[in-house]
């Protein structure tokens, strides 16, 4: 066996493929996970190139496929890509803000074989929702589309990004979801990458806010279970309030493969911010990208780990946490994720928590995700 074949045997297939088909989006969420300089990346893959990515991924074993962005609905060839994906046997997920969706499109996606549509909300009421989204009509449109999705026979999956300006709405959000008849509700507190990292002080909830929210969610879970309701509440709490990091992406290059709009292949959708060179599907087969490229092999295994991870008996559990977080908070992506209280940089997390206790910034002070702001970041 050659060395490449040997390492191939240990590395499992990419079961999850995320196709970020575009960075274009009509909304301007200040917590968007897209890169700050997304406006510089305007060479999107063509339909044929995406089809090729889908075929290669499926042959390698990918079974779950997410279409996201940006706003994937912006791509006119989306129905074509969905149909191809479904034919190949993928379980196809569409992750959308609901803007640009209408009943006819929902129906055509259904015909193309789409399995699931997730509609994301910014809040439980129009004012706050629209202020966060940077759009005046977003909320009504989202409500209508959530209903259309359900009427077309899809499971209704609603996603709310939670931060300090809407975390007090937990009860209202869950009420709204019950009224709409949601099957799954994701209450996902911001993860601080991309625009959310830039806006962290203005987004991160305080410990006290989080405690109340957790209590509320747990109480509602119990009532739902007692009522035999199938509505599932998934509450993703911010890891800034943990003492152990999350097992990011279930391990670098172990299950997840993201392809960005320009064809850059990434082990996670925020990995682009790392000072590592990542391969492009235009230049290389997906197989050689996944198994052989230096970018994907960079943080596989644990031989790259410095202390305290190197000699830690928990390294098989969390893989040292998130590389992007280590990079953003310590300047060196090899370091332990500072969320870990064994990390010598854990004080940066503690400082962020203290700042969250005293933060006063209003929504209007956040930096909104739009092309104008993005170009500023590129120059700056």
């Amino acid at each position, binding site marked *: 066996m050659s060395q490449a074949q040997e390492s191939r045997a240990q590395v499992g297939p990419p079961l999850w493929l995320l196709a970020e088909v575009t960075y274009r989006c009509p909304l301007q969420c200040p917590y968007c996970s897209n890169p700050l300089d997304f406006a510089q990346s305007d060479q999107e893959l063509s339909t044929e190139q995406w089809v090729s990515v889908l075929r290669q991924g499926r042959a390698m*074993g990918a*079974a779950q496929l997410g279409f996201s962005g940006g706003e994937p609905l912006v791509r006119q060839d989306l129905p074509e890509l969905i149909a191809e994906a479904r034919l190949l046997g993928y379980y196809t997920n569409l992750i959308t803000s609901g803007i640009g969706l209408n009943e006819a499109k929902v129906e055509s996606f259904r015909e193309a074989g789409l399995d699931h549509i997730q509609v994301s909300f910014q809040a439980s009421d129009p004012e706050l929702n629209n202020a966060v989204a940077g759009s005046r009509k977003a909320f009504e449109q989202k409500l209508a589309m959530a209903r259309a999705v359900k009427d077309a026979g899809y499971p209704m999956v609603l996603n709310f990004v939670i931060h300090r300006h809407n975390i007090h709405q937990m009860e209202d959000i869950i009420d709204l979801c019950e009224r709409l008849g949601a099957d799954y509700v994701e209450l996902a507190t911001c993860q601080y990458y991309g625009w959310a990292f830039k806006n962290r002080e203005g987004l991160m909830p305080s410990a006290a806010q989080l405690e109340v929210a957790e209590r509320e969610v747990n109480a509602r879970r119990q009532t739902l279970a007692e009522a035999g309701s199938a509505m599932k509440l998934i509450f993703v709490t911010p890891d800034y309030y943990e003492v152990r990091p999350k097992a990011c992406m279930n391990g670098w290059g172990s299950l997840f493969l993201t392809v960005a709009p320009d064809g850059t292949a990434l082990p996670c959708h925020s990995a682009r911010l790392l000072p590592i060179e990542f391969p492009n599907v235009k230049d290389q087969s997906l197989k050689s990208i996944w198994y052989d490229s230096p970018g994907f092999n960079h943080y596989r295994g644990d031989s790259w780990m410095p202390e305290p991870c190197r000699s830690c008996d928990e390294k098989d559990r969390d893989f040292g946490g998130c590389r992007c977080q280590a990079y953003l908070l310590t300047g060196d992506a090899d370091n332990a994720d500072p969320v870990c209280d064994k990390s010598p940089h854990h004080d940066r997390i503690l400082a962020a928590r203290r700042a969250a206790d005293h933060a006063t910034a209003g929504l209007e002070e956040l930096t909104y995700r739009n092309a104008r702001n993005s170009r500023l970041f590129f120059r700056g």
Partner: protein
Amino acid sequence: MNQIPKLRPGFRFQWEPVQNAHVLLYPEGMVKLNESASAILSEVNGESTVAEIVERLENRFPEAGALEGDVCEFLDDARQQHWIMMV
């Protein structure tokens, strides 16, 4: 036994050659199924009753003996996980 189990909307049962297993796919999730779970779910088609499913499985696996207990237990579990519903 007269109830008809059916996969919940958004759930799909399929064979994955690379994993050499049947899987259950659902919104942003996937479970790899063991052989008995796959055998049972392969008979869940939204038309057959539990009794019919048991009978077909007993025909498929004569050496396994009576299967009613196992099948009911699995279906009960699958319903609690909200993978299937009874119609």
